Every structure is written in C-alpha cells, then in structure tokens.
C-alpha cells in the first residue's frame, strides 16, 4: 500500500471522532490522523504553536474540517487558512452535519476543496469517510511541503 499522508481532523464531538476513526481504521489511515478539538487548536497545529510548538514544520496533506466548532468556528478557520500564503495550498474538506445552502455557499466562496454532508446512515457515513481518506491521503498527490508517511 502507498504511504498515507497526514490527515488533520478538526472535530469537537468525541463520538464523531470515534466514528470517523472507526471508518479510517479499515484502511490503516488512523496512524497519521491528528485531531484538533476546536478551531483554535486547529490553527495552533497549522502555525506550530501552543501544544504543537515542537512539531515538524510541515503542512498536513488534507484537513477534514467540521463547521460548528467551539471558540473559532470552521468557516473562520477556513478563511484564515485560505488567506495565508503558506497554508492556502492545504486541501480542505468541510465535513459537516449542515445541509444548509448558505454554509455550502460560504465555504465554496472561501475556497474549500470539497464539501461533504455527514450521512445519518452509518454505512453511508463509513463509506464517505473511507472514500475521503483514501482519496486525499493515498490517491491524491499532496502539495509539496506536506507530511507523508515514509
């Protein structure tokens, strides 16, 4: 199997984290998943500060971003990332419960790479996460400067 690239999962709900991880497990994608529990933590990771101050200074290959987050919400994180010269190359996938058109429009306007509504059905959910993980972490060639498992 191809080496998997690092995934940044920004998700505040531990149950969603668990379900997502379960889905990714099947493809052994969990080793390289970093979890940020709110928008602030996500930005700390991306800018290598706070508790991530000592990490190697490379971008994740993809960021799976929930929209409804404590402190700094997903759209704000997206805006920040897409307006930063170094971070804007990171592919961002919005992974949300919201089917609202305005959230979708706002995300695309900010330059999101994909918008995925979490299916209520578990099998659909697992499939969606698996496909996302496989596509972004294995099939897709991440931009230069991204972390890839050796």
């Amino acid at each position, binding site marked *: 199997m191809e080496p998997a690239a690092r995934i940044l999962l920004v998700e505040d709900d531990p149950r969603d984290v668990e379900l997502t991880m379960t889905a990714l497990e099947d493809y052994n994608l969990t080793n390289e998943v970093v979890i940020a529990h709110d928008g602030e933590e996500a930005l700390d990771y991306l800018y290598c500060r706070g508790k991530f101050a000592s990490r190697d200074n490379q971008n994740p290959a993809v960021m799976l971003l929930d929209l409804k987050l404590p402190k700094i919400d997903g759209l704000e994180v997206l805006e920040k990332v897409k307006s930063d010269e170094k971070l804007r190359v990171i592919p961002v996938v919005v992974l949300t419960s919201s089917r*609202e058109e305005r959230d979708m429009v706002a995300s695309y306007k900010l330059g999101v790479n994909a918008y995925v509504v979490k299916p209520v059905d*578990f099998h659909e959910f697992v499939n969606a996460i698996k496909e996302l993980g496989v596509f972004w972490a294995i099939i897709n060639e991440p931009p230069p400067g991204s972390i890839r498992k050796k």
Partner: protein
Amino acid sequence: MSLIQSIIRATDTATRGKSKLNAPRSAIQRYALAVASVAVALGCAILTNRYHFRGVEFPLFLFAIAISAWYAGIGPAITAFVLSSLAFNYYFTEPYYTLYVTREDLVYYLVFLLFASLLTWFSIVRRRVEEALRKSRDELQIEVVKRTQQANLLNLTSDMIFVRDMDAVITYWNRGAEQFYGFTEKEAIGKHHYELLRTVFPIPLDDLVAEVVRTGQWEGELEHIKANGEKAVVLSRWSLQRDESDRPTAILATNTDITDRKQGEEQIRALNKELAKKAGELEAINKELEAFAYSTSHDLRAPLRHMVGFTELLQKHASSTFDEKGRRYMATILEAAKKMGTLIDDLLAFSRIGRVETREANVSLDYLVNEVLSEMPAPDGKKIGWKIRELPEVYGDHSMLRLALVNLISNAVKFTRTRSRPEIEIGCVEKKNNRAVVFVKDNGVGFDMKYAHKLFGVFQRLHSTEMFEGTGIGLATVQRIIHRHGGRVWAESALDKGATFYFSVPTQEN
C-alpha cells in the same frame, strides 16, 4: 363777475337737468341750436330795447353762447360767439345797424367780446372736464359690473376664497368660505384672517408672507378652525396682487377642503404602520423558523447519526451475544432513528419552501408533467393507465411547481398501488381570469371527506404507515408551494372511490 358766476350756475343747473332733455346729436342740429339761441337772444334784446330797457342784450347773448357751448359743443359755441359779436356790434353799438364801432362804444364792445370769449372758453373747459368725468364714471361702472360678475363667479365655486390686505385684514370673503367656515361675509371682512380661522401655519406667518412677496405665490396645507369649533385641513394657494407701482397690495387665498383626504391618509398611514409592525413580527418569526431549521439541520442530525452509528457498531461487535429478541430491538432502534432522519430531512425541505427566493417565469405544465413522469420510479409489476390531457402554460417557479407535481403524482401512484388496474388522469378543468385549475385524479383508495381538512397539515396522515409509507409532509408541501403562488389547493374523494386533487395557479404575471 357775479354775472358770470350766475351764468355758470345756470349752466350747471341746465347740466343737471340735461338728462331730461335730449342733447342734439347731429352737426346740423347742433349748429342750428347755436344760430337759434343767438337769434332768440337777439329777438329778446331788440324787443327789450324797443321798450327802452338798455343793457339787457349783454347777458342775453352771453346766455346764448353758454347754451350753445353746453349743449352743442365747441364748434357751435364759436359760431354763437361770432354771430353774437356781429349782432351785438350791428344792433347795439353806435353807430347802430353798421359794423362800425364809435370810439365811445368801443370799450363797451370790447368788454362784451372779452366776456363772450371768457364764457366760451370756460364753457369749453368745463365741458371737457365734465366729459372726462363722465367717461371715467362710465368706465368705473363697467369695472364695477365686471368685478361684481367676477365676485359672483367666485361665489359659484365650493372652494373657500378670501382676500386679505397686507395687514392680514380680510377684504373679500366668498360664499364658499361663508358656507364652509360658518362665518358670514359681514363677520369675516375687517378681521385678521389668522385670528378668525385660528390658523395653524407650517412656518411662521411672516416667513410665509415674505415668500409670497418674493415669489408671488405659496401653496401648502393649513389647519383652520370653523365657527362651530370643528378642525379642518385645507390645501391653501396664496397669490399676490400688486398695484401699478409694483407694491404688494393684497393676497388672494384659495382653500380646498382636504380634511377627508387627510383623514384617509392618516388612516392609511396608521394601517401601514400596523402592517409594517406585522411584517416585522412575521420576519422575526421567519428568522426564528430559519434558526430552528438550521439547528435542526445541524444539531438534531448529529446525535441521530451517533445513535445509528453506535448501534451499528454494537450490532457488529456484539451481535453474536444477542438473542433473537435483542437483535430485533437493535433493528427497531435503527429503523426508528432512520425514520427520524427522514422526518428531519422532510421538515427541512418543507421549511425551505417558505424561505427560498422564488424565480418566476412561464412554465409549460405539459413539459413539466412529462419530465416528472419520466423520472417516476415504475411501480412494481403493475402498469398504470395514464391519461394526460392538454395542460396550460402557467406562471411560477419551475422547481417548486415540479416538486408539487412530484408529490401529487407520487401520491396518486402510491394510493392506487392496491388496485388491479390503476388509472391516473392529469388535466386542466378551467382557465380564466389569468388562473388555471389543474387536477390529478386517481382511482385509488381515496379518503373520507370528513377528514379533508386534515389532508394538508404537516405530518398528517389518513392511512397507517403499514399500508402506505410516508411522513405526511407531501401534501403540506404542495399546499405551501401553491399558496406561495397565490393559488389554492383542495381535494375531492370518497372512501375507496379514488381521489381528485385540484390546484389553481396563475397563468401569467400579474
């Protein structure tokens, strides 16, 4: 001199009496009068002379000249003067019966000539003055008549018209004003108009008058109090009158009663305010609904997903440790959670109908129905007898009308499922007044008309879920869409006799 005065007085008297006489009109008559009066004077003078009354001829001739001047004009007066001079010379200055004058009588003759010419001159001047006076009096009379007529005309209008001088004192008050305000002309004239009418001015009166003087006019709304204490709102138009030397002399104010209109406007304004308040409330409610829908979309789906997800995981991990009953419970949990997911999605779709902007255009129902039918999943095994009649072109939002048709047609398909030969007919019953009534008729299970009022309610169902699946939101969606198009939706049915759903939609933009 007293003689001349008396003559003037005499002519004056004659003038006053003149209206009874007919003054000679033609030139011949006038000159004849001059000659005749001199001749009479001469006759009288000769007669009196014969009886030795001397000195009478002098005033007689002067009198003749005066008569001629007065009644016959300048020419005859001069004629009378010349004739009198000659006659006086011929008959009454020595030597008699010649035109010579002796030195003794020359002074006497010259005095006569002087008096005669003075008298002629006086008469002519006086006549001229008199004529000028008469002329201006006639003009004045004509003017008075004209003014009276105008004033009468101003009385014909129901507008309230008054004139005020530059001291704000009323000098004219028409009948309209009399009737409307309840002050008679006598009561109004001489009063200050703003005191009489207790006017409420939009700007100070001095400023208003200054504007009228500057621009010549002013127009605006004023409040007046009538004699009976009633308040009136009038549309007032002021125009300035100037004299020949361009000094402002008076202001004409024309007032139209707009109290009713004003009250109407006031009512409309109040209603509009009320409406704006209601619209605001409605908007707030809509916002609330939107917030609710948003949180439904977001916050209710997450726990539902977790329920489903972890139940699935439980099933996967511990299925073998459960007995049949346990597995059924888990399946029920899953089923219920999924159903709730569908309900939430339907509710969201339903609330979206009210929230999204509509894009209205001409929509061909023919085309739309065919499109819907081609995408309708075929019912298992059975062939439906479709009867699609001619359908009109309507005016509305394409995707919404499509959704309404999808709901109505899939309902028809659903409720004819138990029939051995399902039949569905779609057509248009009437098209008038920019409105078309379209129907979808089936030969399905139908419903009892006593529940017709529940048909279009959210989550209302007239059949059990075991018999016919569904969340009960379809017809509510149809109704909401048709209402947004300004139409109406209703149904006719009998239990087990099929159902017909009607809806009306506009056929063109209004």
